[in-house]
């Protein structure tokens, strides 16, 4: 009997050891230690304030730190109603992202992994991360802000909970971070591109800010994106749409024209150009652009035809006016 109980104890020990060691590998940290191709070995971000976290409020606290760094002066208490879920005693990733946009900043989720994190830190951008301080089957989700990484000293520093400078071995951090799928969020002013920016994800992030009506910031961000990707169709259309929404028709026309010139097969570019020209009163040129969009067709063809119909409704009047001299 005693023998059997010992076997149970041994089994418990074995299971515990297996569970704990199951996530013990840290390949990315090992790679970072082995090479310096991720940039400089020490990266430090300055200008990130510290807000000690109230109970369960690590989401609002981390956001306030990152937003303040980006130039938006807010406190965790102000952000709490934007992200905190009382019954979950925490904040969802999606709402963290949404709150950044509400505060007119670009929310960019980095490509999962230590290389992106190191690159962003090296570029001077703090990163809000989600880590699981517990185990995969007993999660303790926690937001913190990475402000310092020293690969040589094997140390990462975070604004976390009650600690202004929580230092953690890189390997331990990787383990806790891996359980969130390496989720990292940048909170950037519109004139600052992520070091690891990719065209589509970045423009999607800007379009979401545009959709919330932060037009001035969206316009700056589209300019920022176009500096990096001058041929981006979505970038030009986004800039045009933002200008159009701001009733700056000349700016909109210019952007759509660049889009149409560089992407002559884009019906959207011609459609939006046509609408803008019509609004400016250039009906002949508007008709030409709208005809071009209709000719290009595609899944948006019904909208293109509507645009054309809207313009010809005006030109009908104009052409009758034009005909009058002929009858003289």
């Amino acid at each position, binding site marked *: *009997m005693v023998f*059997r*109980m010992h076997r*149970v*104890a041994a089994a*418990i020990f074995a299971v515990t050891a297996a569970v704990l060691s199951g996530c013990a590998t840290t390949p990315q940290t090992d790679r970072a230690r082995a090479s310096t191709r991720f940039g400089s070995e020490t990266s430090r971000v300055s200008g990130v304030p510290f807000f000690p*976290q109230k*109970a*369960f409020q*690590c989401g609002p606290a*981390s956001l306030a730190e990152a937003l303040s760094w980006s130039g938006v002066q807010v406190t965790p208490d102000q952000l709490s109603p934007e992200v905190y*879920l*009382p*019954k*979950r*005693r*925490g*904040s*969802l*990733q*999606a*709402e963290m*992202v*949404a*709150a950044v946009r*509400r505060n007119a900043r670009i929310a960019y989720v980095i490509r999962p992994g230590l290389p992106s994190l190191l690159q962003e830190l090296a570029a001077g951008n703090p990163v809000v991360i*989600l880590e699981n*301080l517990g185990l995969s089957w*007993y999660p*303790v*989700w*926690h*937001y913190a802000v990475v402000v310092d990484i020293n690969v040589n000293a094997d140390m990462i520093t975070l604004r976390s*909970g009650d600690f202004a400078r929580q230092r953690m071995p890189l390997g331990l951090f990787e383990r806790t971070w891996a359980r969130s799928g390496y989720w990292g969020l940048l909170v950037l002013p519109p004139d600052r591109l992520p070091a690891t920016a990719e065209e589509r994800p970045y*423009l*999607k992030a*800007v*379009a*979401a800010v*545009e*959709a*919330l009506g932060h037009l001035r910031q969206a316009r700056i961000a589209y300019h920022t994106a176009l500096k990096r990707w001058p041929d981006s*169709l*979505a970038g030009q*259309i*986004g800039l045009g*749409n*933002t200008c*159009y*929404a701001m009733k700056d028709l000349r700016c909109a026309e210019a952007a759509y024209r660049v889009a149409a010139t560089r992407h002559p097969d884009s019906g*959207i570019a011609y*459609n939006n150009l046509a*609408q*803008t020209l019509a*609004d400016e009163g250039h009906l002949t040129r508007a008709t030409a652009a709208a005809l071009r969009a209709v000719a290009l067709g595609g*899944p*948006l063809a019904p*909208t293109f035809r509507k*645009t054309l119909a*809207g313009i010809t409704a005006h030109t009908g009047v104009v052409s009758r006016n034009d005909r009058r001299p002929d009858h003289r």
Partner: protein
Amino acid sequence: MENFRFATSSISRFLILCLVCMGIHVASARAQIIGTGTVLSSQMAGVSGNRARVKAFLQRKEVRKELLSMGVDPTEVTTRVNSLTNAQVADLAGRISKLPAGGDFGTVLFIGLIVFLVLLYTDIMGYTDVFPFVKKHAS
């Protein structure tokens, strides 16, 4: 039966009205300018666009309901839902109670878990008798 029919017909009338209003809203708000989101989305508008719009509309309602049930202030909930993109709404709908919510709430529970494990272990070893589901061996 009459009541039921009346209820369903008024609900469907309301829904039709909603959808029509959405259509008008989209059409009038921005002349015929095609939005940046459309350029970036892989599935372009058209027939499927209408269906996607209806789906997004319903999912948004669901997320709103879930957020309210999670204790979000009713005066805040509209702005919170509106701040989400359609893709985010699709991600959240029906999953808000399961997705990670960063809050570092574990400490208290974690201590509870450890106490439970210790007592379970001592129960199994025969030192304590806290849990009736642990089979006791006559010794």
